[in-house]
């Protein structure tokens, strides 16, 4: 784990993504992971921050299907609740929108976005025995 004295949240987050690492932050004294990256812990202002690698597991917390004009295809946007606690906006790839449900177990994956990267999710097949939430 790296303790960051002069943290540049967006730049460092994106640099980690480029290395294939999806990182969260936490205060060493609070021990509560948070997202999105900041220069101080939300709520306490603590600056003893460190980057921790997210395990990548989570569940779909909320969903919407964005409707677009043909020939483009409608697409889902979701809020994922990470197993570490924080929530983030994302999408679930490889799942038909009609099959997507709140509570679906998902796993993070880093993909290119424009000239940077972003975190998306795929269904965690091993952890979705049925449509339970």
């Amino acid at each position, binding site marked *: 784990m790296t303790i960051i004295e002069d943290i540049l949240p967006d730049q460092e987050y994106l640099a980690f993504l480029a290395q294939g690492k999806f990182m969260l932050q936490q205060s060493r004294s609070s021990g509560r992971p948070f997202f999105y990256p900041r220069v101080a812990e939300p709520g306490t202002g603590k600056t003893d921050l460190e980057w921790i690698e997210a395990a990548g597991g989570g569940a779909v917390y909320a*969903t919407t299907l964005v409707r677009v004009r043909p020939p483009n295809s409608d697409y889902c946007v979701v*809020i994922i609740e990470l197993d570490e606690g924080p929530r983030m906006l994302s999408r679930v790839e490889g799942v038909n929108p009609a099959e997507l449900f709140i509570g679906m177990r998902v796993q993070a994956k880093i993909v290119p976005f424009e000239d940077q990267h972003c975190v998306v999710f795929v269904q965690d097949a091993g952890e979705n025995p049925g449509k339970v939430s």
Partner: protein
Amino acid sequence: MTTDRRAQSAIVGAATFGIGEAPGFTSMDLAARAAIAALGEAGIGLAEVDGLFIGQPSDFLSGLTFAEYLGIQPKLTNNNRTGGSAFLTHMNVAALALAAGEIDVALIAYGSNQRTGTGGLVSAAAPNIYEKPYGLRLPVGGYALAASRHMHEFGTTKDHLYAVVRSARDWAMLNPEAFLRKPVTREDYDSARMVSDPLSVLDCCLVTDGAAAIVMVRKDWVENRKAAYLLGLGEATDHYQIAQMPDLTTSAAKFSGQRAFAQAGLTPADVDVVELYDAFSINTIMFLEDLGFCKKGEGGDFVASGVTGPGGSLPVNTNGGGLACVHPGMYGLFTVVEAFRQLTGTAGERQVSGVDIAVAHGNGGFLSSQVTAILGSNATR
């Protein structure tokens, strides 16, 4: 009834202008027309305005622009921006400044030509690197995500959302100013174009032109003017981006409402009409729950029971709301204008009888900023 310092003030003029389509006017023209009309109704001259409040769609220094346009030199200008709730935050500052003797006459205004001038909803929301890759359509997508969660946790359905849309439309049909005055049927609702599931175009607020303005003074200035007295006003905010909202099914209206009711020494049972910011159909359900008019999770059944429509026991959005009357980008001030009209008996065919306590509730961002004002008739003075 109340000892809060804010409760030393009253609204003595309220006006709208250009609701629907007002081609040729700039947004500031529209705000100024509403402002002059509100001052005229109050019988107060422009030169007496010493507190000026505004937040225009795309003018981040609109307090300065408005003072210059009107040709006045106010002691206090404020263009706080919290989205559509901004104008109720302006009321908060105005009431405290009036109570402190800092100003004598506060003018609060808003205008937008977004329908005829730009052809689309003007939104100040810009996605950051944590949202941009996913293409959430804002603002509707934020509310759609909240609606999906409300449906998941409480079994809220499209039937419930339709009941909100129907209630608003039924009121609009009684309001000559309203933009959408034709009846809505279940068939219309079920066949409406989906925008961001579970919300269709009929679950979304209108995109219209329009302006609103109110004039606030201390009680000792009211004299024989028509007046709506400020009894309590609470603000609360707990996030900006929807993914950061602590609980997608409970907004900070829970806290703004508690603060406002505590100041007023009242409870939801005392309220005669509710004017709340229905940017999307889910808002009405969530805010009625969060403000305490029904239990959390029961808002859908509450509206579907018919109590919020014409003739119901708790009239809600009696002008037709943002869904059917007017929505020029930011709607908050229109909730206050309609509350004033109901409290002063000037609401025409849609007038609810015996209105002494009204709630005006503003929402901003993506359920992010919540501001609740409780207003009273002359009987509460």
